[in-house]
C-alpha cells in the first residue's frame, strides 16, 4: 500500500497520545503524581497535541475535509466511523480529567474514575483505529490478526516511554521508579509482537494470480498486457513495491530505534538516576523515530490482493 504521510502521522501520534493519557490516569490513580499545575499543563498539553494533530492530519487528507462530520454516522458497520465517534467521545472524560487536574488541582473522588474511564476509552479508540486496517481482508498482512495487538501494545509502549520521560523531567522519582518496569515490559512485548507480525506476513499469500483470475486449471498465469500503460489510481495507491526492496534494512532500523535503544536507555536511567533525564529524552525521540519507520513499513509492506491482477 502507498505509505501516505498523513496516515503514518495519524496512527503514530494518536497512538502515543492515547498511550500517554492512559499512563497519566494510572499514575494519578496510584497516587504517584499529584495534580500539579505545571506538570499537568505540559503532560496533557503534549498528549492532546499528539491526539488532535493526528486526528486533524487524518481528516485533512480527505478529498472533502468539510464533509468529515458525516464519517460519524455509520458506526453500525464501519470501523472508521466507530473510530471517529470514539475519538470524539474520549475527549469528554479525558478533557474533564485534565481540566480538574490543571485548574482544580484535585483528582480525588469521582474525578479519578473519570480519568480511568478516559484511559479505557483511549485504548478502545486505539483498538478501533487498528480495526480500520485489521478488518480489510483484501490486505492479508493486516487481516491475519496481528494488527490490533500491535497497535495496542505500541500505543501503551510509546505512551509509557513518553510518560517516563515526563515524570523524570518533572522530578517525580517515585513515579519514575514505578513506571520503568511496565515501560521495559512493553518495549520487550512490542518487539516480540512486531517480530511475530513480520514473520507472519513473510509467508506466501494464499491468493495467487491463478486464484484471482480463476485460470489456474490452465496452468501458471501471468499478465501479458496491462489494461493501461501508465499507472492508474489502483497501482499508485496499492501497487507500492519500493518497501519490499529495502524492508530488511528498514526493519533493522525500526527494531533498534523503537525497541532496543529505548530499552537500554531506560535501564541506563534506572541505574544512573543523575543521567535519567538525558537518557529518557533520547529514548523518547528514538522511539518516536523508530515507530515512524515501523508504521511506514506497516503500510508500504502490506500487499493488496488487487496487485495479483497486475502480476506484482
Amino acid at each position, binding site marked *: 500500500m502507498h505509505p501516505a504521510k498523513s496516515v503514518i502521522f495519524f496512527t503514530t501520534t494518536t497512538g502515543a497520545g492515547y498511550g500517554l493519557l492512559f499512563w497519566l490516569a494510572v499514575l494519578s490513580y496510584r497516587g504517584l503524581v499529584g495534580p500539579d499545575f505545571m506538570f499537568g499543563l505540559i503532560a496533557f498539553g503534549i498528549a492532546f497535541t499528539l491526539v488532535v494533530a493526528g486526528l486533524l492530519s487524518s481528516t485533512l487528507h480527505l478529498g472533502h475535509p468539510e464533509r468529515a462530520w458525516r464519517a460519524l454516522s455509520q458506526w453500525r458497520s464501519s470501523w472508521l466511523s466507530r473510530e471517529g465517534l470514539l475519538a470524539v467521545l474520549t475527549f469528554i472524560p479525558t478533557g474533564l480529567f485534565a481540566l480538574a487536574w490543571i485548574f482544580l488541582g484535585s483528582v480525588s473522588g469521582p474525578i479519578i474514575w473519570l480519568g480511568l474511564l478516559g484511559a479505557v476509552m483511549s485504548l478502545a479508540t486505539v483498538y478501533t483505529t487498528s480495526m480500520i486496517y485489521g478488518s480489510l481482508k483484501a490486505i492479508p498482512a493486516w487481516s491475519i490478526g496481528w494488527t490490533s495487538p500491535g497497535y495496542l501494545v505500541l500505543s501503551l509502549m510509546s505512551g509509557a516511554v513518553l510518560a517516563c520521560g515526563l515524570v523524570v523531567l518533572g522530578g517525580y522519582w517515585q513515579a519514575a521508579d514505578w513506571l520503568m518496569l511496565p515501560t521495559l515490559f512493553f518495549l520487550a512485548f512490542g518487539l516480540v509482537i512486531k517480530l511475530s507480525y513480520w514473520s507472519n506476513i513473510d509467508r506466501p499469500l494464499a491468493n495467487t494470480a491463478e486464484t484471482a483470475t*480463476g485460470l489456474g486449471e490452465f496452468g501458471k498465469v501471468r499478465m501479458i498486457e496491462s*489494461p493501461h500503460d501508465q499507472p492508474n*489510481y489502483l497501482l499508485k495507491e496499492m501497487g507500492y513495491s519500493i518497501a519490499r526492496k529495502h524492508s530488511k534494512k528498514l526493519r533493522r532500523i525500526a527494531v533498534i530505534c523503537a525497541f532496543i535503544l529505548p530499552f537500554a536507555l531506560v535501564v541506563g536511567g534506572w541505574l544512573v538516576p543523575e543521567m535519567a533525564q538525558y537518557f529518557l529524552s533520547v529514548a523518547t525521540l528514538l522511539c518516536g523515530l523508530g515507530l515512524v519507520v515501523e508504521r511506514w513499513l506497516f503500510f508500504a509492506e502490506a500487499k493488496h490482493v488487487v496487485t495479483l491482477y497486475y502480476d506484482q
Partner: protein
Amino acid sequence: MTSLPKNPSGKKLGLVIDLDICVGCHACAVNCKEWNTSGKMAPLTDLEPYGAKPDGVWFNRIHTFEAISDAGISRTVHFPKSCLHCDDAPCVTVCPTGASYKREEDGIVLVNTDICIGCKLCSWACPYGAREYDEDEGVMKKCTLCVDKIYNENLPEESRVPACVSTCPTGARSFGDLGDPNSEVSKLVAAREGYALMPEQGTRPVNRYLPPRPKQVGGGEASAPRMLAHQDDSDDGAGLLASWVDKVLSR
C-alpha cells in the same frame, strides 16, 4: 445505510463475462467511459489525457493473461474486470459516511458522490480493484451497472442494457438477473460452469466469468490456417550482398 440491505428482493442484477470469446478489443471499456462520463457518476475525469503520463477514472479495465500448462500449452485470455456488485460487499460496510450503498431492489452497488468524503477506504476494501478515486473531484467512483441506462424509459427497450454489453462486438458480455435461476444469464452460467472471482475473500460476487473452453488439440490441417513457408528466412541461395544486408539489418 452502509449496512447491507436486510431484505434484499432476491433480484441480483449483474454481468456474465465469457472469457472464451472476449477478443480484448477494449470496446466495452471505451463505451463504458463514453456513457458514464455524462451519467450518474459523471464525469469520469482524465488527468493529463494527452500528456506523458495520462491517468483517469475508468469503471472497466481489460487485462490480458497467459496461462501456461506444465506441458507448455499456452492460452491467451482477455479478462475484462469491472465491479462485481458483490452480495457481501466489503466496500459498502467499511464506508463511514453512508455514501457507498447496495440497493435493496436489485443489488446494484453505488456511491453517492454528494456525501462521499473521499477517504478511499472502500477502494482498499475491494479485492478486485473496481473502485477508482477521482482526484479532481475528491470522491470515489465506480461502475454503476449503467443504472441510468438499464431503467431508462426514454430508450428503446432493446437498448436498456449496460453500455459495455450493448457495445461488445463479440457478444462476450451478458446482462441479467443472476438471482433468478431461470433467467437467461443464470442458465448460461449453469451450462458453462461460470465462476466467481476470489471466492475465498468472502465477498460473494454477483458477476460470473465463463471459463475458456478446452483447447482443441490435434485436428490437423482443417483446424487452423496453414502457415506460409518463409523462404527468405535462410540465406541459402541469397546473394552475398543480400545476406550482408540481412546481417546488418538484423543486428
